[in-house]
């Protein structure tokens, strides 16, 4: 069985290699190759999963060492995989949802001449993400981590001819690199502290070092997680990343990329458990992002950007849960999985809408689409219900648990976190309802574009709708399936551990409160967007709205401080390099030339002055000799 693990990665990697190096010959078959290999990986995952189910809870983890990667004195980095329940969960999510997105893309990208390459990149994305989750050490994880960054760069910037896409891709990579810096420092810290960075030895040895070191490692890991999972303060790339084709957004938001941060924190649970200060920072980041994303999501008129804000917010939930420690790990992952279903569904739905609307993304120019694209409407609707936590659907189970766990944190912290989580749920209900209403309900608001093409909304082809239907199933049933009999808890507990907190309020109360805020959120949205016609041009809005439209001014901050500041810095450094560093040398040369020119004048051509120089020289020579003796 162990040998199959490598196959998980090998299949999509092979796909990427073949598709990217294959050239135009493969143009016609490329998407099939890519999809098949992604599916193959999924099949391998399922086989491994079934095998795993057949074993006892404690010996389900599989190990496979492929080869010694960087053997240097005192430094052992192996290419070795570890497949335990946590990794397995991710493998299934990644390959499963990933395969669906592949299928969807066949239709979505049909008219793109570079479709082969797109599938190559998708396969690369899967491969990198799989490496990330099945690596058995942090350095190999780092490989996957950066690989994901690369793949996202390539995919976000897939339409490179659009400057905005290229910029967004670059931004995503750069912001991620800041996070990567954190991860690499964390690995270095682990190396100097533990002498290794393999999961097993590091996580077992946490007790042998001081809390300070662990806090430092934890914070660095958090920085890494913030980068990949678009948490405050490294969230700015996520919105721009919508420049990529919609399947890419689905992939990034649901199955890969943003989930990596959650994985990292949950995987490193042992470190965080021993470093409460780091944990506190994690929950704060999670809570802040949760609200941040939700607020941004409320203000966006771009359907994909609204969904992006929602992702940020949902990942905030997961990070929050992960920061709570053993109480929350399982629920963080569970929410991650359910979120994977409904968010993928939502994005694919959004893509389907755009597909039918000439790639229009402004929701104010949609309206009443439920009649034109029923399948999309239903699947999107189910996803919507799932995300707002409609009772019985996936989101309900997973989010509810997180809110409970937040309260269970205890003390003032618990109250604050719990309230934030509740508030987030209300806002989620609001902005998702807004999206739903603006897109599918009300009057049609679309107009001919600049060239006079009137959109003709239509349902998408089968290749696109089928994945959406599958995902909708997941959105509806996954949560329930996981929660009944604590299936998911039991499955993951051997890896992550679990503890039950003592909530100051009962679970029922929390559920009830959640329901209340949900209704409030939906109601407000209905009042604002459902009751009256929506203006096609966005009103100016309040100060908060305007700020939220600009991602709460974070980009402006970045622009002023980092971009402008950086430009000034580099420009002045270029100047310094030219005038100062180089100038010193050129100046020396020039002054030498000047000295030469002056000394040269002594050679005035008059024999008598030469004689004077000789005579003087002799005099000095004599005087010096005598003086030497006198001294």
């Amino acid at each position, binding site marked *: 069985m162990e040998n199959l693990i490598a196959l998980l990665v090998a299949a999509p990697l092979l796909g990427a290699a073949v598709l990217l190096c294959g050239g135009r010959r493969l143009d016609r078959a490329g998407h099939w190759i890519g999809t098949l290999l992604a599916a193959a990986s999924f099949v391998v995952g399922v086989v491994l999963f079934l095998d795993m189910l057949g074993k006892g809870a404690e010996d389900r983890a599989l190990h496979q060492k492929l080869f010694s990667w960087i053997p240097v004195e005192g430094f052992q980095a192996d290419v070795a995989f570890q497949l335990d329940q946590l990794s397995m969960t991710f493998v299934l999510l990644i390959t499963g949802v990933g395969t669906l997105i592949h299928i969807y893309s066949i239709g979505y990208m049909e008219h793109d001449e570079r479709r082969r390459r797109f599938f190559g990149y998708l396969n690369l994305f899967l491969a990198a993400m799989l490496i990330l989750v099945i690596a058995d050490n942090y350095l190999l994880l780092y490989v996957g981590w950066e690989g994901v960054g690369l793949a996202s760069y390539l995919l976000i910037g897939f339409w490179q001819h659009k400057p905005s896409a290229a910029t967004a891709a670059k931004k995503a990579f750069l912001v991620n690199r800041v996070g990567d810096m954190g991860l690499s420092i964390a690995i270095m810290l682990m190396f100097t502290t533990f002498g290794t960075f393999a999961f097993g030895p590091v996580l077992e040895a946490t007790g042998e070092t001081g809390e300070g070191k662990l806090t430092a490692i934890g914070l660095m890991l958090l920085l890494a997680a913030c980068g990949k999972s678009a948490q405050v303060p490294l969230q700015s790339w996520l919105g721009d990343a919508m420049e990529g084709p919609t399947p890419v957004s689905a992939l990034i938001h649901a199955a890969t990329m943003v989930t990596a941060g959650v994985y990292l924190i949950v995987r490193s649970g042992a470190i965080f458990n021993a470093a409460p200060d780091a944990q506190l920072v994690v929950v704060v980041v999670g809570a802040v992002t949760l609200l941040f994303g939700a607020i941004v999501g409320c203000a966006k008129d771009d359907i994909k950007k609204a969904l992006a804000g929602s992702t940020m917010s949902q990942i905030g939930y997961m990070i929050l849960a992960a920061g709570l420690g053993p109480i929350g790990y399982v629920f963080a992952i569970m929410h991650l999985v359910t979120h994977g279903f409904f968010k993928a569904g939502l994005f694919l739905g959004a893509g389907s809408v755009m597909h039918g609307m000439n790639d229009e993304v402004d929701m104010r120019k949609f309206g009443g689409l439920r009649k034109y694209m029923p399948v999309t409407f239903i699947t999107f609707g189910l996803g919507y219900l799932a995300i707002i936590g409609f009772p019985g659907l996936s989101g309900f189970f997973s989010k509810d648990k997180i809110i409970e766990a937040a309260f269970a944190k205890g003390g003032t912290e618990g109250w604050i976190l719990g309230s934030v989580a509740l508030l987030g749920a209300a806002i989620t209900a609001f902005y998702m309802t807004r999206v739903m209403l603006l897109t599918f309900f009300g009057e049609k608001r679309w107009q001919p574009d600049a060239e006079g093409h009137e959109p003709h909304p239509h349902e998408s082809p089968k290749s696109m709708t089928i994945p959406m239907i599958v995902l909708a199933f997941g959105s509806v049933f996954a949560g329930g399936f996981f929660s009944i009999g604590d299936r998911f808890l039991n499955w993951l507990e051997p890896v992550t551990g679990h503890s039950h907190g003592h909530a100051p309020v009962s679970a029922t109360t929390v559920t009830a409160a959640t329901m209340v805020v949900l209704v409030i959120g939906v109601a407000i949205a209905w009042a604002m967007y459902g009751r009256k016609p929506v203006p096609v041009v966005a009103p100016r809005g309040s100060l908060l709205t305007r700020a939220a439209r600009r991602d709460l001014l974070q980009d402006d901050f970045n622009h002023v401080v980092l971009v402008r500041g950086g430009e000034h810095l580099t420009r002045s450094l270029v100047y310094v390099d030219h005038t100062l560093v180089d100038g010193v040398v050129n100046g020396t040369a020039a002054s030498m030339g000047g000295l030469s020119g002056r000394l040269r004048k002594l050679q005035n051509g*008059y024999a008598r002055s030469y004689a*004077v120089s000789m*005579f003087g020289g002799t005099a000095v020579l004599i005087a010096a000799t005598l003086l030497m003796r006198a001294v």
Partner: protein
Amino acid sequence: MNPVNYLYLAALLFTIGAAGVLIRRNAIVVFMCVELMLNACNLAFVTFSRMHGNLDGQIIAFFTMVVAAAEVVVGLAIIVSVFRSRHSASVDDASLMKL
């Protein structure tokens, strides 16, 4: 008379010669000043010779005279040819090459 005085005289003559080289413009005069310096040397040789009581110095003086004569031959040849081309025997005029 104390022979040391001849040394002083020799030094004086040498200095006068050197000063002449530095001051005078006419190449012939400059050259004569050099000859004066050589003769000052001769005087010194002879004086030392007497003080040491050996003949070396006096013999050297003869050599010096011969050398000086040879120098005159060469020197005058050069100076004359320069004079003929430039119609001037001033050493300051010969300053085409400088810097």
